[in-house]
């Protein structure tokens, strides 16, 4: 039985590995299914990575390399796919050597995130070649040196969509339009400015993508604005802005999931419903930037160390935290009373002003007026000292 196994060598997993190894754990094992460690940043050539954790402005690939270097004291096995979890810290892993089940006292799930494909969006139309997620597109350009289309439309206007725009520009691809179903551009300035002025790409708000057209490859998209339909000729569609935690391992296994986040439910010590498993990074909820994922990896590592030393409170003591009103989710989904200050993270389902309220047993513990945006995360302080005797915590946006 090992001390610690980490599933996924992205920013969260590698940062956790670095902290566990630095604390003196000798047998930290990181399992990564890809041929190289580093996670999603490996394929994002634009700068802006490493700011929070390394205080540098690196490209994604550089950031990935530095994360791997910093975790060198841990053992990283690439080409190792985790195929199932078993109660009590069992990890079924498949590699060229075959399939075996490893065990650890503490297992960290750090499997990251992916974008929601057109199928799960229930997008209408034909299903030709040329509909790509932003991540796949960027990887094709930056790592594959491939140009999949010349005149795509981009669906969505949050930051990732603008990074797709930059990638397109580098590759000599001229998007014909950016489409946004909402009335406003999601990414605050300078996103729209960049699109309009630097790249000359029209941003169409309040425009819904109705259908993809084309047989072998995309030929057009049908859009609607204010009840008027229009066909935009294009040869590709870049989908952006909707994310799904890569949490299938947890869902297929025995861990309790949160339908709100799409990830495993955790307590304030990053513990899943089976306390041998911890989770951190984007596997917990739809996307946060890499610095946040890495910080969670570090925090989870500290919790794992305390668990290995037997210093964590029993998980049975935790109370449920539920999201209500206009909130899509809140996590951690359980908190242990009397554990000091805990930071809760939440997201609003839609843009709007309202009262953000934290209550337990009908008593309001904390509240604040907010202007919520679905793309912006909301943090709330919870004094768990106030929870003695309570049955649960409700976080509400009313």
């Amino acid at each position, binding site marked *: 039985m090992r001390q610690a196994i980490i599933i996924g060598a992205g920013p969260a997993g590698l940062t956790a590995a670095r902290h566990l190894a630095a604390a003196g754990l000798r047998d930290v094992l990181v399992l990564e*299914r890809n041929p190289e460690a580093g996670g999603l940043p490996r394929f994002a050539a634009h700068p802006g990575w490493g700011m929070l954790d390394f205080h540098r402005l690196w490209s994604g690939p550089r950031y990935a390399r530095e994360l791997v270097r910093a975790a060198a004291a841990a053992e990283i096995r690439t*080409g190792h796919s985790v195929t199932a979890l078993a109660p009590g810290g069992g990890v079924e892993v498949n590699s*060229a050597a075959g399939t075996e089940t490893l065990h650890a006292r503490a297992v960290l799930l750090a499997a990251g995130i992916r974008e929601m494909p057109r199928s799960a969006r229930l997008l209408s139309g034909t*299903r030709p070649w040329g509909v790509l997620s932003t991540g796949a597109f960027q990887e094709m350009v930056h790592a594959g040196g*491939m140009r*999949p289309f010349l005149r795509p439309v981009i669906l969505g206007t949050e930051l990732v969509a603008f990074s797709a725009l930059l990638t397109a520009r580098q590759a000599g691809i001229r998007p014909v339009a950016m489409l946004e179903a909402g009335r406003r551009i999601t990414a605050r300035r300078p996103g729209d400015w960049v699109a309009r002025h630097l790249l000359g790409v029209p941003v169409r708000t309040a425009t819904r993508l109705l259908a993809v057209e084309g047989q*072998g490859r995309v030929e057009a998209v049908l859009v609607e604005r204010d009840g008027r339909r229009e066909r935009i000729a294009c040869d590709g569609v870049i989908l952006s802005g909707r994310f799904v935690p*890569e949490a299938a391992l947890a869902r*297929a296994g025995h861990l309790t999931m949160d339908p709100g986040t799409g990830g495993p439910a955790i307590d304030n010590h990053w513990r899943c419903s089976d306390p041998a498993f911890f989770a951190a990074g984007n596997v917990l909820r739809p996307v946060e930037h890499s610095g946040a994922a890495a910080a969670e990896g570090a925090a989870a590592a500290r919790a794992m160390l305390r668990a290995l030393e037997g210093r964590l409170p029993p998980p049975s003591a935790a109370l449920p935290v539920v999201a209500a009103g206009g909130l899509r989710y809140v996590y951690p989904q359980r908190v242990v009373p009397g554990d000091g200050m805990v930071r809760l993270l939440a997201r609003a389902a839609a843009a709007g002003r309202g009262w953000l309220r934290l209550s337990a047993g009908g008593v309001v513990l904390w509240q604040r007026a907010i202007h919520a945006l679905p793309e912006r995360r909301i943090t709330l302080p919870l004094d768990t000292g106030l929870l003695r005797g309570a049955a649960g915590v409700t976080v509400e946006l009313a």
Partner: protein
Amino acid sequence: MTRAQTGPDPAFDILIIGAGVVGCAAFRAFAMAGLRAALVERGADLLSGASKANSALLHTGFDAVPGSLEARLMRQGHAAYRALHARLGLPLLETGAIVVAWTEADLAALPGIVARAHANGVADVRLLSAPEVRQREPHLAPDLLGGVLVPGEAVIDPWSAPLAYARQGLAHGGTLLRETRVTAGRQAEDGSWQLETSAGPLRARVVVNCAGNQGDIVEAIARPSPFEIRPRKGQFVVLDKTAFALARSIILPVPNERTKGVVISRTAFGNLLVGPTAEEQQDREAATVEEAALVELLRQGRRMIPALAEEPVTATYAGLRPATQFKDYQIEALPARRWITVGGIRSTGLTGSLGIAAYLLELYGAHFAPLPPPPEPIWTPVPNLTETLPRPWQQPGRDEIICHCEMVTRAEITAALAPPLPAGDLGGLKRRTRCMMGRCQGFYCTRRVLEIAAPHLPGLVAPLDGGAG
């Protein structure tokens, strides 16, 4: 290959138009019977029509019209698949089916369903009480009223079966021509056919029309078509692998006049399928998915299995049934025209194909020429794609995994792009390997798949420093 003057006769004994599942099965049968057979397909790969998108069910024919050709050939096709699937490496997921009654009217219809099944010779079909259904299918909504058990209904791999048939036909000396659209033809004085195609002329002594949704158009080469194709679309939603456990049997609706009803079934790839719709349309080519229909399928699925509400969607797709104004298969030999019509194989062709193929041999022997004694069969198993048999990633020494969702190795992708029947387009590669077909739909693997495939499948991507694609 160039043929010298003294070489073999350039005419094929038999030429089959259309490499859907029916054409592939016919090609196999004629080639294995020792004939010089050609299979001609307009698409870049097999399964460019109806056969690429169906429910993948091996039907018993329990609900067919008794006495119809369809009923007979489905029964034969079903038996033939059971007899040969293992030798071709093809799966058989023995799920059985339950026709579930949700209303009093449904319940009242059940005895008639059993009686029809018995009339069709499917003797093991029987009524189930509501508790019996619940015991077999604990995830069904508890307000079900009863059911009919159809033990023989099964799930197969809709892509590998026709691929295996075509490959066995090739192994027996058959010729497969892709990207070859038959556009016209005329009979020579000896009755043989001179066909015009997009890839040049072809000659054949007998032609078989297996053109699916183009069936009436192709038929017009030989005669005014006695049937008219009326494409009927079916849309589907594929749910995540975690949903697989929620239904063991195929859950069938009680057919009635007003609603079409939706089927829930496992797939051989470990997912759960909800669908299809049934929508008449004019367009013979485009099978679009539509959000409203998909939402409705999900709603109906959740009505039957409430736990489906938690399950993410993996894929959506649609297929076009080559329906006609007639219910039954339209199969006919025209001796004077040296032509065999195989039309309107609407919604049971995956099951019926091997039965249809055997029937075509009979027709050929009766109307055109006596069949020579068949050579020893050559068995050419296809790679396994399904969860019912071991897969390459599970073997020690496996190659690196390219598609993580479906656990597809590099070696499988490379093999699918190599002879004897390399994938002709990206769809063909997906159908041969399952790559890019899992829950991420290519988010993680598109680049790596294309690094392997792009040299073989031009037109998908252009090199960055090169010209336009």
